[in-house]
Each structure stands twice: as C-alpha cells, then as structure tokens.
C-alpha cells in the first residue's frame, strides 16, 4: 500500500509577512525583509542587521494564551503558522471534539525546529557572578546561586527543541507520530520529506509539517559571525543577501515558521478539501566530508537530488524550476551550482533556479518549509519568484537564476533543495495537482 501525498493547507510567519498571500506578493515585487537588528543591541557586532519577524502577536491565534505565553520565539511563530494552515485545510483547532473528519491518532506533527534562545540576562549575569578572572575558574556555588535566583523554570523548559511540537499538539489535538528534528538549515525540508513518508506508508493520514526557528539572539549571531558565515554589508542591509552574485559575502540571519498540512490523497478527497499541490519525491543524503565545509564537488547534494527524482519517478527533463538553497555564501552558491550541473548536465542552463533568501533572509531550520510554500505558489500562479540583488553575476556561476524580476512560466514540477551545516542534504519534489 502506498498513499499519494498532497498539500492541503499552508501558513507562515516570516520577516516579509504573516500570511502566504502577502508573502507571495512581496516576493513578486522584490521586497526585502532585511533591516537593522531591533531585538537586541547589535551595534558593535560584525553584522548589525537581520531579517526579523515584526509586529507579530501570537495571541491573535489562540484562546489559550496562558498555555503558550512562555513559549520561545520559534514556538510562538509556529502557533500562528499552524492555525493559518489548519484553517485553510479545514482542520479544527482548540476544540475538544473535532469535526473535521480526521482521526487524531492518525494526525502527526513533524517539525524542523530549533532550540529557543537562552535566557540572556540570567545566563550572562550568572557567569559574571561566578567567574574568577584571576584564577580563570568558575565558582560553581556563586554561579548556581545566581542561576537559581534568576532562571525561570518554564523559560528553561521552553528552550528545548521539542517544545514547538508540544505546543502544536496542544493546539490541534494531534496524537499520531510527533517528531522534531534539527539538521541545521536542512531541518524543515527533512521534516517535510519524512512526514511525506509517514503518510505514504500509512503511519499517518495527516501531518502538520514544517519548521520553526529563531537564532536571532546574542549567542546565535555571535556563533554565525565567528564562523564568518554572515554578510557584514552593514551599510546596505537590503542588498546584503545576494545569492549567486560575484560580491556575495554571506547569508542574512532570519527567523520564522512555515507550516504545511500534508495529507493522504484519500483523506483529502474524503474530506473534500482543496488540494494545493502534490509531493511526489524526497531524497536525503549526507556529505560525510568535513565538519566545516560542503563536499567540493557537491557530491552529497547531487546524490540527494537524484534520489528525490528517482523517488518521484521523474527525469531531468520534467523539472520546470529549482528553488535553491542559495544562501549567498561564497561556498554554498558555488557548490550548489556545481551539483545542479552534475545532475542536469546539458540541460542545467535551461532550468530556472532562484533563491528567495535574497528577500527573506535565511530562516535556518524553518527555511526549507518557507521556501517550499513559495514553490506551491509558483506552481499555482505559473510565476517564478526572482533572485533579487543579482546585479553583478559571478562569472563562474552561469545558470539561469531568474535575476531580479519574477517570470511567467509553465510550472508543473519543482525541486526544493536544502543543505545543512554539517552536510545533510534534503530535497523535496512537488508538482501541480492533477486529478488522474
């Protein structure tokens, strides 16, 4: 038995919008979600800007404010994105006896979700109290006393990466397989791919799948800055994310949550809900190369793309569009291009490839899901979203990156690629829904 898997709902909370339609229009008009950092004083950091979710209020989406009020930023975003997606898919939320035709024991949740920010005030003040700079030793008694005074138990618990799915279970009543993974920047694509498999093989009828993450906090920004992974174009934040251009100098740290309702075709038909697209393929691989670098020739990336095409039963001739990982780092964009060339060979230059990270920034764990939602929009509107800020193409990178302007095109079958720090590669293929 093998079930076909379709998408029946989508929701998003991201730097450009708090709903899918507004996001799509913003992408078509080339808007940027990047600006000065307002979440903390980053004025002395190497990078002073980011892509933040602004003016978001999770209490608009729930009756149980008390239950969710201590949640991490990422979990809070996931609540909004999930409620939007459930509304579109006709799934009841926050009702004790759902009447939407879905058996809760067959409703799962699978997120690529990140840890919440540490409680910065408590964390730093305890170190300051405990650390003896003369002996270079920690006085653990002082440290513990300060921590006991300042740390809030629930805020500590809410940092756990499994708490986002916990909140979504309380919201929707889902009692099926509930998983959370964190394979860095590939996490939500992996979550969607594995969720697809849960439905295909009968472990679930419906899975609420996607990602939620925010690493816009002092230690997150510090970590990425130290890795020199971020753009430092502080004088021009909105043009900083420039995938595939010669002057790209790193990615722009973003945050958000993107949720898709994945459903077996038979469940969607039985419930009579609109089908937005079909997920036909999933491929996953690892580089097994270096902790710090992608494989030079994109071996792992190509392996994942090929595995996804095989799973979907398509060939390179069937692919109308590739939504790239396209981070705007020197390494990723070059190696991703090599991998696409290795897979598509002579056809590589004829397949449009674009990166919406140019506008949205990099949502880390949530990136793949947010980008997959735009792939569904591309299919439904027959329009390719552009790669903006691409005014000085890198001569080494010679694919069709859909520079700066959206483009009308017949879009039936789309590849979504995501690659994580540490070498996890995940690829999902979706196609226009055709009832056949």
């Amino acid at each position, binding site marked *: 038995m*093998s079930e076909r898997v379709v998408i029946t709902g989508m929701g998003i909370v991201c730097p450009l919008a708090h709903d899918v339609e507004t996001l799509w229009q913003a992408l078509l008009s080339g808007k940027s979600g990047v600006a000065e950092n307002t979440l903390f*004083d980053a*004025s*002395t*950091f190497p990078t002073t800007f980011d892509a933040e979710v602004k003016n978001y209020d999770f209490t608009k989406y729930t009756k*149980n404010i008390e239950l969710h009020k201590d949640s991490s930023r990422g979990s809070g975003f996931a609540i909004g994105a999930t409620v939007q997606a459930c509304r579109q898919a006709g799934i009841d939320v926050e009702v004790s006896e759902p009447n939407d035709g879905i058996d809760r024991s067959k409703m799962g949740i699978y997120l690529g979700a990140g*840890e919440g920010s540490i409680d910065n005030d408590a964390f*730093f003040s305890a*170190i*300051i109290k405990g*650390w003896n700079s003369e002996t270079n030793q*920690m006085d*653990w*008694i*002082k440290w*513990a006393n300060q921590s*006991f005074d300042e*740390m*809030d*138990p629930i805020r500590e*618990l809410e*940092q*756990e*990466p*499994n708490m986002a*799915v*916990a909140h979504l*279970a*309380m919201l929707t*009543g889902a*009692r099926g*397989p*509930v*998983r*959370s*993974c*964190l*394979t*860095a920047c590939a996490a939500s694509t*992996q979550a969607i791919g*594995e969720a697809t498999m849960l439905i295909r093989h009968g472990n679930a009828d419906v899975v609420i799948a996607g990602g939620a993450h925010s690493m816009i906090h002092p230690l997150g920004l*510090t970590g990425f800055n*130290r*890795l*020199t992974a971020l753009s430092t174009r502080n004088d021009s934040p909105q043009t900083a994310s420039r995938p595939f251009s010669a002057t790209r100098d790193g990615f722009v740290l973003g945050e958000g949550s993107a949720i898709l309702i994945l459903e077996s075709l038979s469940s969607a038909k039985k419930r009579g809900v609109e089908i937005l697209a079909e997920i036909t393929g999933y491929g*996953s*691989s*690892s580089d*097994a*190369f*270096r*902790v*710090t670098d992608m494989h030079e020739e994109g*071996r*792992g990336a190509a*392996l994942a793309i090929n*595995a996804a095409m095989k799973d979907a039963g398509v060939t390179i001739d069937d692919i109308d569009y590739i939504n790239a990982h396209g981070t705007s780092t020197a390494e990723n964009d070059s190696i991703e291009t090599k991998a696409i060339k290795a897979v598509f060979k002579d056809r590589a230059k004829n397949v449009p490839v674009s990166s919406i990270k140019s506008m949205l920034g990099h949502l880390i764990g949530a990136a793949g899901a947010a980008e997959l939602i735009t792939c569904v929009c591309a299919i439904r509107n027959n329009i390719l979203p552009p790669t903006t800020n691409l005014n000085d193409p890198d001569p080494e990178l010679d694919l069709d990156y859909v520079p700066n302007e959206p483009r009308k095109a017949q879009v039936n079958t789309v590849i979504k690629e995501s690659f994580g*720090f*540490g070498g*996890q590669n995940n690829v999902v293929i979706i196609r226009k829904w055709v009832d056949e």
Partner: protein
Amino acid sequence: MARSRVVITGFGAITPLGLTVGDMWAGLCAGKVGINTITAFDPSGFNCKIAGQAPEFKIRDFVPKTHRKATKLMCRDIELSVVAANEAIRNSGLITKGIDPENVNINPERMAINLGAGLISCDLVELSPAVAASKNEGQFDIRKWGNIGLELVTPLWLLKYLPNMLACHVGIIHDIQGPSNSITCAEVASHLAIAEASQIIARGNSDYALAGGAEAKVNPIVMIRQCLLQRATTENNDNPSSSCRPFDADAKGSVFGEAAGIIVIENLENAKKRNAKIHAEIAGTGQSTSINSAYKNLEPDGYGLQIAIEKAIKEAQIEPDQIDLIIPHGTGIPCDDMAESKAIHSALGEVASEIPVWPIKSMLSNTGAASGALDVIAATCAMKENKIPSSINCDNIAHGCNLNIVKKTIEKEIKYALCCSYTHGGQTAAVVLKNISE
C-alpha cells in the same frame, strides 16, 4: 512493494556503567549503580549533587588518525556518540572507512544514520573569559561583547553545539553518505531515531543504518534546569546508589546522567546474506503524544503513551500476552511513573500486572536522548542471554503502580520485549523487539 524486515546486528554503548555494552550488561546483572557525586564540576551549590557519569576516556583513542584534529570540535555529547558508534560498527562486522579503509564492505551511499540528540549546552568554562571581558560596572555589556568578548570566542564555537553534529562526526568517520537525521525529542529521541531508521530501511532507501542517541546531561546548565523543574531528586545526595527509585513508594525524583547508545540495523535479507549475527528484530514501533496543559509531566491517565504502545504492538502483529519483558521509561518521578503504569495497563489489559517489568534508570540514570537506545540494547542483551536481571531500588511498589517489577533474576526465553518512553513535552514512543534466534 514488500517492506523489508529490519534486524539489529550491532550495538555499542558508553554509560555510567562502563565503556561498552559488555560493561553495561555486566553492571545491570550485578545490580551495580552508575550514579555518584558529580565530579565534572563542583556541585555543592546545587540541591541535586549526584549524576550518572561515564568513565573517563580519551576521544583520540576512538577516532582514526584522519579525524584527530576534528576532535577539538567535539562537545561531550559528540564524543559519547563517536565512542558508541565505533563499538556498534565493530560489533556488527560491517567494515567502514573508520574501521579499516582498505577493506570497506559497505556501500556508503546505502548506509543511513539517525541519532537522537539533546539540547546541547555549551561549556561555560570555555565561554566565560569572553563574557567576563564584556563586564562593565559589574554587569554584562552587550556592546562590549560585540567589541571585545565576541572576538574571544573560538571561531568554530557554534559547530560544537549543533545537535546534528553527532551524526555529522560519526558520518564523516565512517563515511556514511545516505540519509542523515538528528531527532531532537528529548527522552524519546533515540526511540524515534530507531523507528525512523527502521522505516528508511523497510521502505528500501538504505540497506543499513546507525541509529540511537547520545546526551551528556552532566553539565551545570542542564543540571540546574532539572533542579529548577523539580525533576531531580534532592533528598538522596548522600545515598547515590539508592537515589533513583522508579515505581517505588519512596521515589523522590529522577537522577540525570550521560551516555550514548547506538545500534546497527539492516534489512534481514542483507544480514543473512553476509552471515551477520542477528541480535533481534525491530518488530514494531509506535508513537504518539501526551496532551497535558501541565506539560511538565505526563498526562495523568497516560493516554498518549498508551497509544504509542498499542501502535507498536499492532505493527508487531502480536497480542499483549506474547510480551515477556517490558523496559519502561520509569524515571523515579512519582506522578510520571504512576501515569506510565496506567498507560501500560490500558494498552495491555489484564496481562499488564503479570509481565516482568525491568526499570533500569535506577542503575544507569536518566540519560535523556540516549536512554531509549540503552533500553533497546538492554532488552536485546536480555533476549540473547535468556535472562532478566533483578531490578533494584523498588522495595515497596508505589501505590497505584500495579506492575510486576522484577525482584529476582528470571532465567527464561524472551520472545518479545517492549520498551517505551516519553518526554516532558509530551512525545511518546514504544518499540517492540522480537527474538529471532534459532
């Protein structure tokens, strides 16, 4: 397309009871307790001062020469996973690049890795000089941090603490190029990792996989969280060996620790073809979630755990009375133990009060993302040895926990074993193992 059967052909574990599965099993059989006063840092300011600590080891002894430099990028959780993976692969008879690059007998593209990982906390001693340098009038000054402190943080600092780095290092060492996932669901993480890896093999995406989990909870930040959340026992600091008391009337909370448990699984045909020793079959897995607004604990009737157990039994196509052994999650937190007992009863019916139940956290401590894999390995050992060792620290069963806790070593054939787990966020999981030795 027929789904492949999935079997365990190798295992490795580093635990508070020793550096290997052999050490762990010998310790469990002897009723040895791996819990002691914390030595990793001075615990005197903590109200729980005990933990399960793994023996000392040098990580350089467990990696090939080519990976020695990269050991600098390993936090404790990563080190533990590398040690256990090394043993698991050797035990399986598979030859990877990390074991012997001249005689590799796997196809790297057909091997998957799926590890459970915790919320990894940084090494405070490593980070503190940078924080101290950012002090201004006794307070942390974020501008000073950006100017001075940040530069003192080692450039690759972040890479040490990403949860996917366990699978990343192990994957590089052994050249594993198939699907790689890192499940971050606290105490159920390694059950879920084993379930997902089994599904990857069953559907034909890989031929073999490393699955399990690792977590190093003996870290000041992790320990203080357990104290703040009132999960850790604070009344047994002077009696570490009797501190963790799952299902006992005198249970006062859990004890936390560090470990890694990793198994090699592969499809049955493949294992037979290469004449591998088969430890057990993964006969069924199930998962669900507890829905409890007081999500610090399992829902009182254990319903979410009940569903997971029922699903695993259904997938294994067995009846409850065929189960010969249950390794419960059993943490020593009274309300959770009670809920788990209810879940086992609701799922299994009348036989629930008869099936031997063997809680092992009393000896191993609660090792978070590693714990489910340790349970699977312990159950597999019990099957191989036809033996369920006596449990410890359950002298008087808690009121309301009507379980047949193993009080005296039982020697008998174990055909099916059930392991189950849950998190303090609600996720639940269960695994049914089948003895297929002839």
